[in-house]
């Protein structure tokens, strides 16, 4: 049933556009929070900024995940055989682990060296996810 998404004239590219908008919301807002954790915009209360930024980032992730799931459903075997795709999925788990670690230890309140390490890691991981996603078509 989902395979029809592939042969429909503009369904797949439309999903890709939605996917990209999710990526933009996610990455942009995480980088914003990272800068605050590193001390920029110190006058902005962290908790308030984080509520706004992480809320948007989460919305972006959900948009990317739903559109991504639909694209995956249209050609699962082909994607599972693609090393760029499987690496991307592995990196997603790493990003989730890093986020759990960040919130689990209260990094948002501590704003210490480890908080900065975790935020920097977050950006690196998400950029790698982005690169893998684009690489799928070139593999």
């Amino acid at each position: 049933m989902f395979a029809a998404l592939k042969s429909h004239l503009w369904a797949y590219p439309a999903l890709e556009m939605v996917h990209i908008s999710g990526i933009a919301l996610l990455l942009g807002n995480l980088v914003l929070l990272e800068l605050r954790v590193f001390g920029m915009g110190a006058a902005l209360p962290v908790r308030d900024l984080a509520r706004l930024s992480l809320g948007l980032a989460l919305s972006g992730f959900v948009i990317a995940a739903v559109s991504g799931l639909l694209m995956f459903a249209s050609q699962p075997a082909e994607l599972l055989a693609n090393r760029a795709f499987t690496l991307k999925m592995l990196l997603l788990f790493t990003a989730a682990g890093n986020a759990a670690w960040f919130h689990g230890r209260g990094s948002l309140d501590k704003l210490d060296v480890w908080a900065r390490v975790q935020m920097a890691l977050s950006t690196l991981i998400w950029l790698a996810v982005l690169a893998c996603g684009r690489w799928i078509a070139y593999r």
Partner: protein
Amino acid sequence: MKRRDVIGAVCAVSGASLMPFARAHHGWSGFDQDRPIYLEGRVLKSLWQNPHVELEIELPATLTLPADLAQRALPAQSAPVNGKALLDKAVLPARKDRRWEIELAPLTRLQAWKVAEIKPGTQVSLLGFTFAGEKGDAVLRAEYLFVDGKVYGLRSSPA
């Protein structure tokens, strides 16, 4: 009028004016993957570039389906493509165009297959898909490339 209104208007107008150019390049979703087409001919132009290599070929005056086509061995690749089924179903195009635009794979994938750069004048054969009902331009998205006595898969990297 505030400056931001002017900037906004300029952006909207320039965005809208780029629309016709957006139609010039087509995606992969418009091809009829239930109807594999066989083509062969001489390469007139070769654009060895990303996002995918493009060839312009000229078919012979009378194109015929090779007798051995269904028996040809196809190489293994990582994506689950049933090449044998495609060969069995292969037909010649109904349209009479002698010039076709062929879309191959991205450079990285052609490199994975070790395909040497194809120069104008080379004879190539292809199995691929065109638009549903053979409408629009004479474009073939190639699934298999036969050149210089070798066969290459184009959907994914070699297995």
